[in-house]
């Protein structure tokens, strides 16, 4: 069928007009532009990550902070709490479309990846001064704010670190102390794994892991690989399949299949709450998680006195006792913002010592500015342990633009291996190596084009 050409022309012109209209409508800004120093009456949009036990808790904490900020500056902050699983996609979608919030939270491991998109305002010169300068931040946290040698496009907001949570009652009953080395850890976990109801199957486990979580898996590959002296990257070249990384990953995934100290059901845990729930119910003696898990334990009804936090066990004889990556949440300002001064003011406010105490206390995270760190609120034994780990035994995940892809490929490989470990039993080093080799090839191919 052929259409008369004038009809095609008319339709095309109509379509074009509609596109132009749509684009013009999208490009519109409903508020008047501001000049710095005259922020009153401005409204900015803020995307917060989910830090609390529930989104409701986040909403409450952020609303209170926004109310204090409004009182101080007259700027209204409209916020939206975005679940962790959606955050990265939402950010990249906003970057692609150019329509995003003014200020947002990012996982600090993504800082170099998102920096490469050019979507965020670099914190340099006056803009860095506007948020209070580099010196106010803890240097370990500030190190994970962008690729080395480039102007950072994010500043730290919440500090997080891995630690070993242990159930005091179960440890006392079994006469155990928190393990320091990996072999002690496996041994302790074995002693805690028990059949308590006499049905011939263990129902109390030594350890719990989020085996279905891509990010958790990637973090453990990094931490345990580093303990063996391995590196995930040699410059820009992925080196996931070196013997050091293979060994670390093998130790981890085999906690289910070979050592039988973790519930096979852990292989599908992915939402960040199930290991904490299992632990809170006394069904597992230990789990390694970031400090914000304290919130989940509280939500699950576990008293703070019922558990302790110790340093993450380190591979026997390791020269690189890495216990955590420099974990945390950072703040970025969208380059497309029309209210940069108000946005920077909000960043400054959130990273002020008073707000740092308030926010981090609410979320069970660690302050990232020096002045807040000495606040008595963070002098609890557990937070002191986390703080110590973050200061002494932490390294940032590789700060490369492909960090996001790296987490996906390694995390997927471990997810598959943990799934095998849960369904088929012990996973051999050769199988671990093959899976990591495949991830390595995918990574090399992905960054090659």
């Amino acid at each position, binding site marked *: 069928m052929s259409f008369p050409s004038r*009809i095609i022309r008319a339709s095309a012109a109509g379509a074009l007009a509609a596109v132009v209209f749509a684009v013009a409508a999208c490009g519109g800004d409903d508020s008047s532009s501001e000049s710095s120093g005259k922020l009153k009456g401005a409204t900015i949009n803020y995307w917060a990550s989910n830090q609390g036990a529930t989104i409701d808790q986040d909403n409450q904490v952020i609303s209170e902070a926004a109310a204090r900020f409004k009182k101080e500056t007259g700027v209204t902050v409209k916020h939206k709490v975005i679940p962790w699983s959606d955050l990265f996609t939402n950010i990249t979608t906003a970057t692609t479309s150019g329509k995003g919030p003014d200020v947002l939270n990012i996982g600090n491991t993504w800082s170099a990846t998102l920096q490469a998109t050019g*979507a965020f305002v670099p914190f340099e010169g006056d803009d860095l001064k506007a948020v209070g300068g580099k010196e106010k931040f803890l240097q370990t946290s500030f190190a994970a704010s962008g690729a080395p040698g480039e102007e950072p496009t994010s500043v730290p907001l919440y500090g997080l670190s891995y630690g070993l949570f242990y159930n005091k009652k179960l440890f006392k009953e079994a006469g155990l102390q928190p393990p320091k080395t990996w072999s002690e850890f496996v041994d302790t976990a074995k002693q805690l794994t028990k059949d308590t109801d006499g049905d011939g199957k263990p129902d109390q486990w030594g350890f719990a892991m989020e085996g279905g979580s891509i990010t958790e898996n990637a973090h453990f590959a990094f931490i345990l690989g580093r303990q063996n002296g391995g590196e995930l990257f040699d410059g820009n070249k992925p080196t996931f399949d070196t013997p050091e990384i293979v060994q670390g990953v093998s130790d981890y995934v085999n906690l289910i299949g070979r050592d039988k100290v973790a519930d096979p059901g852990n*292989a599908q845990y992915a939402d960040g709450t199930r290991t904490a729930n299992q632990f809170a119910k006394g069904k597992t003696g230990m789990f390694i998680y970031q400090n914000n898990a304290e919130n989940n334990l509280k939500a699950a009804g576990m008293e703070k006195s019922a558990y302790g936090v110790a340093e993450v066990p380190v591979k026997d004889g390791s020269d690189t006792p890495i216990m955590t990556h420099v974990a945390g949440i950072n703040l970025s300002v969208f380059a497309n913002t029309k209210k940069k001064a108000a946005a920077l003011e909000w960043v400054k406010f959130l990273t002020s010592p008073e707000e740092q105490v308030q926010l981090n206390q609410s979320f069970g995270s660690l302050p990232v500015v020096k002045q807040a760190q000495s606040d008595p609120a963070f002098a609890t034994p557990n937070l002191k342990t986390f703080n110590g780990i973050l200061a002494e035994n932490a390294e940032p995940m590789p700060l490369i633009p492909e960090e996001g892809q790296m987490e996906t490929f390694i995390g997927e490989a471990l997810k*598959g291996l943990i799934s095998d470990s849960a369904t088929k039993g012990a996973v051999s080093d050769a199988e671990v190596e093959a899976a990591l080799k495949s991830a390595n090839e*995918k990574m090399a191919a992905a960054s090659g*084009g």
Partner: protein
Amino acid sequence: MTAVREPVARPEEARARRRQPLLSRRRLPYVLIAPAILFELLIHVIPLLSGVGISFLGLTQFFIRNWTQAPFAGLGNYRRALDFGGPIGEGLLHSFLITAAFTVIVVALAWGMGMLAAQLVNSEFRGQRWFRTLFLVPYAAPVYVSVIAWSFLLDRDNGALNKLLGDLHLIGDEPPFWLIGTNAFWAIVMTTVWRLWPFAFLMILAGMQSIPKELYEAAEVDGASPWRRWRHITLPLLRPVTGVLMIILFLWTFNEFNTAYVLFGPAPPSSADLLSLHIYVNSFVNLNFGLGSAMSVLLLVFLLLVTVVYIRVFRVGSDRLAA
């Protein structure tokens, strides 16, 4: 529409009078179709063409903020996607084969269940209308709600499926995983069939209701068994409906994204790595929109080929089909 000719009109007049409505009749379809074309262009054609354009670009995370800066990649993305010896092509091929198997099974099961249910509801019995409504529930429920409910059912430790299988003594001490490992394939088949079969049911039922009852009565008088009546009356007379239904189910299933994404998130187990999700991961997780678009174009070409061949072979939509 029939034109009533006035009895005493002269031939010239009549011709002139007829020409007038004829002309506007020629225009009318285009006028009527214009809004549809406009929105088709806006919603489908323009994004599709920009997708094709992107497939020739090295549009990675470095350029997503400013697409126009992305370097021209020529056929590079296609070459990588189709290099089945390399990790990217190998992954795509694996995902394609999984999707093909998934589609065949889902379409067959959805059609089978739809046919059975339509047959049941098409006969007269008490409460027939209740069943008709009940069967439509999966189709009416929002996708996300129903798939999230399925993910609870399929949980290894607390899921209803393993509880049921355990109570029936169909599984041993170690309950199987449904959301990881090889069973994930069957988990997504089950969930998708559950969501899609009511559509098949609805279409088949509509088709059945247009089959004249006399045919069945005559066949019954001739002593034809229910099976023969189904085989020789229902099935052939449903051919026009089946022809359209199959191609729609095929396209929907091959492009299935929501079910897989809600069940597994952006990192599905290898056994359930459906093509749409695979493309999504390449684009939005690995931030290589050029490569993701090239894969989308390949998928589009494949689906188009299948559809064209199918329509030709089964003469879907042509009058001769019904004969």
